């Protein structure tokens, strides 16, 4: 009896539920005339970060505004954790990733990269008092695209210097692969969803060091908390660590990528990238800059 009453209710409610489900399916289908959804972390200053009012700011939000205007598309930036961003791109949640993504061989198998709009190196940061502060080859530039005995020797220095230490990196970030492949047996690696969590653990001394992009570390070191940190060891580029930051697309979205590439070329030529770099990184990070 109770049962038949419930069934009456169910019969009454079911069409409404179907209606709701149906209407959400039809939403946000990406096509040429709709807005582009651009994924970013919003937690990677100064590339992209979230202001207290919830808005996104930094190099990439500024730069993408310029690019979207050039290709005449409406764009919307959404924040999400990096470890879900590639999945979100591939499943159509977002259309473009703009999150200081390094062009690495591993990622090139899954993603289609646009033209790089910045070129930065990776570097180790540790607490001032740490023995790691005295890592050898300080400031030297290691290019992993030019393999040879000299490079192998420097990697060996690094492996010896970091042996037994705990290194924190962002989960599936560019430096994750390098640490795994080149130092994995010597160090223990701890993974973080966001930079902020990793920074807190570095400052707390829960991890001994981090491997991170210089463009992120320079501004951090300039803060009151960051003053406790120093950079150590060589500056690394190329190989699994990538050669330059670029937008990432779905491999099939060739037309969209070509449009963006043209716009990036134009902004590199007219000095827009240089100007934004000086504003946000206090350095010219554009790929052409001689460093």
């Amino acid at each position, binding site marked *: *009896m*109770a*049962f*038949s*009453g*419930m*069934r*009456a*209710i*169910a019969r009454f*409610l*079911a069409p409404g*539920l179907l209606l709701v489900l149906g209407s*959400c*399916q*039809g*939403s*946000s*289908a*990406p096509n040429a005339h709709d807005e582009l959804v651009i994924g970013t972390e*919003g*937690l990677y*200053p*100064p590339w992209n*970060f*979230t*202001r*207290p*009012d*919830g808005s996104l700011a930094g190099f990439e939000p500024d730069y993408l505004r310029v690019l979207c205007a050039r290709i005449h598309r409406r764009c919307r930036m*959404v*924040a*999400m*954790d990096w470890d*879900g961003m590639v*999945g*979100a791109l591939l*499943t*159509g*949640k977002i259309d473009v990733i703009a999150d200081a993504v390094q062009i690495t061989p591993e990622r090139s198998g899954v993603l289609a990269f646009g033209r790089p709009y910045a070129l930065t190196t990776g570097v180790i940061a540790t607490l001032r008092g740490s023995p790691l502060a005295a890592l050898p080859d300080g400031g030297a530039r290691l290019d992993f695209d030019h393999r040879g005995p000299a490079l192998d020797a420097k990697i060996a220095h690094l492996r010896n210097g970091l042996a037994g230490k705990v290194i924190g990196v962002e989960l599936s970030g560019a430096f994750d692969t390098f640490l795994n492949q080149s130092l994995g047996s010597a160090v223990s690696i701890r993974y973080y*969803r*966001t*930079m*902020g*969590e990793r*920074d*807190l653990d570095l*400052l707390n001394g829960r991890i001994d060091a981090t491997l991170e992009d210089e463009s992120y570390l320079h*501004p*951090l070191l*300039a*803060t*009151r*908390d960051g003053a406790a940190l120093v950079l150590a060891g060589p500056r690394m580029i190329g190989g699994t660590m990538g050669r330059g930051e670029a937008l990432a697309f779905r491999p099939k979205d060739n037309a969209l990528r070509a449009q963006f590439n043209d716009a990036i070329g134009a902004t590199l030529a007219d000095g827009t990238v240089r100007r934004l770099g000086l504003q946000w990184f206090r350095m010219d990070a554009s790929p052409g800059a001689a460093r």
Partner: protein
Amino acid sequence: MIGDDVALPVLLGFGHDGWALALIAGAGLTMALSLTAMAIGTVLGALLTVAQMSRRGWLAALAQGYGLVLRGVPELLVVLLLYFGTPGLLAAIAALAGLPAPGSPPAFLTGSVAIGLVSAAYQAEVFRGGLLAVPRGQVEAAIAAGMGPFTRFRRVIAPQVLHHVLPPLGNIWQFNLKDSALVAITGLAELMRVSLVAAGSTRRPFAFFAAAMVLYLVLTSASSAVFRFAEARAGRWAGGR
């Protein structure tokens, strides 16, 4: 840059560098998310209850299996699975119907559906218990008085079920409210996410997590007061509780 050399009271305040408004907005979103999840759970839970009590064996078994799985898997995995899995699933459904891939639903919808799916499994149990607690004789009296199924449900069964299910529903609501924090991993700026972002970018984790705890306590204790009031109203006939 941000968050540097700014005093804690400023960071927790309403000013340009303060996160107070963001935290309060996050609490609002947490509330909206939990309410949506609860509503989804109620509708689906009612359907599951009907299915469980169905005379069709396979339907009852299906509902039973749903409850077992959703109550046996961590809520975090349900959220993650739905967040990453729905776009592909929707695309597959659309492909079956010959339509283009519909893209992905917004994080708010994904999150509330994920929490709602779990909530439904628990609510179905509660509704079943509530229905079984209505004395059979009172239903018969309604039948004998000539009430049709809808009137019977509306006038006799529903009010009594409501009285029996309100306390356990209050518990489920509290769980929904707290489970909504898991949706933070999808990047939705609800309370947990805002406090995490603020803690990370200002490097003042204690202050911001403490602030978030206070706001959650406000939400949970305010809603338990509402439930207590509702219980008292819905249960006057049952005597002092």
